[in-house]
């Protein structure tokens, strides 16, 4: 249950390599990389994390090919591929 694992992990966000602190969520990695939009709504609006606790589904992204993963409840892992569904 160690939460603070010193060091960095490498992830890919919409094709760009990023090094982020181990232990942060995918939502945090996106914010650190300047990505505010996690998904595009049915009418084409940009959306970002709202509730921060796994309820609203606004932060859903594709992680390692699996769609509808909640960025706010997923920790970054080394080698992870993260794809938003919105424009950068």
């Amino acid at each position: 249950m160690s939460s603070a694992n010193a060091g960095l992990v490498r992830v890919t966000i919409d094709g760009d390599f990023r090094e982020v602190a181990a232990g942060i969520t995918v939502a945090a990695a996106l914010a650190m990389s300047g990505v505010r939009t996690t998904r595009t709504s049915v009418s084409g609006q940009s959306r970002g994390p709202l509730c921060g606790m796994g309820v609203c589904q606004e932060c859903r992204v594709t992680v390692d090919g699996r769609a509808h993963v909640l960025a706010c409840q997923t920790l970054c892992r080394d080698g992870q591929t993260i794809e938003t569904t919105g424009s950068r």
Partner: protein
Amino acid sequence: MTRHFDIVIAGAGPAGLSAAWVAAKQGARVAVLDDNPLAGGQVWRQGPAHPPKAMLSALLTSLHEHSSVTLLTSTRVIAPLPEHGLLVESAEHGGFNLSYGRLILATGARERLLPFAGWTLPGVTGAGGLQALIKSGVPVRGERIVIAGSGPLLLASLATAREAGAQVLAVVEQAPAAAVARFGASLVATPSKVLQAARLTRGFAGLRYWTGSTVHEVRGDGRVEEVVIRRGARDVTLACDRVACGYGLVPNVTLAQALGCTLDDAGAIAVDDALCTSVDGVLAAGECTGIGGMELARVEGEIAGLVASGAPHQAISLRMQRMRWRRFAARLEDSFSLTRAALAMPSDETLLCRCEDVTVGDVRVHPTWRDAKLHTRCGMGACQGRICGTAAHTYFGWDVAQPRPPFSPAQIGTLMAACPDDGACTD
């Protein structure tokens, strides 16, 4: 595959972990589930720069000493199954079934998020939502933030945001000054809360704490750029990078309703003195039985844990404590009840349902939630109405149907795990 436990606890916050601890001491085989990657719930949320608080640390250490406790994080309940079963999905292990002798619902609460013009812009979050995001590593250093909505959570969010280096421009509280002052004075009856309040409001001088005020609109091009705050008859505009707005908490009762548990008038899970729900073998503890804070949740967790593990007589002194914390909760609710200004409906073109992009105007012409859903698709998207249903209930008083299984998007493999199999095993 089905794994059997004497007690399954849904939620690893203060209530769930406390329940697990006392039940394990009684010798029960316990599983605790939580959809977050780390235990602690919302109030004890951990993160890279937020190591477990002393109380959480102590509980987790005690739980680790009991080999009879299994903590399943990143694990969601997808559906209840017949005969004391649950279908769950774990990020790591995929879908599987659990069965239980007793089930303790410790599903906590979520924020009441009410729409306003521009609330869909990236950078608008809940008040507790902002706190959760910061703890999970979202950087806010140097950002100009307005925290708004209602209740003590705004101050907790303020403390977290400031500690993370944000420039909090204002805290906007819908309750009138007199009600907030009355609540402050009543804290004398609960000394530990005075200390907590003192800690949260340290450095309060110089901060704009506006009572009787609400967020009216957020503007920006693809992101938050400014917020319009309505203060009585006057509007004040502040340039900012984020707006964090939440109007108190609402109990999470999805699983309880799917199991058939009766709710009380406030929409929380109805429980008796022993924290038993109306469904045999199902107990509930913490915020899902009514909003009351961490201390009440811990006491309720301990009571439920003792009752579920067959030691209800040991819970008698805890019941006295529970009544004390419930009185505190009642004062809280009175002080921060929503005013007409907070309940003022936003303009017709404001989106109510963020999943299906349905406006307030499209929804409000319908007589019932069911009608509105059928005609507009509001509440039928990925969150299943957890956000807009709560708002619709708040504005229109509608009886909003709760999400149905699967409670959240699930893999096909998980749904297949629910099918009865010949080789059902227990371990």
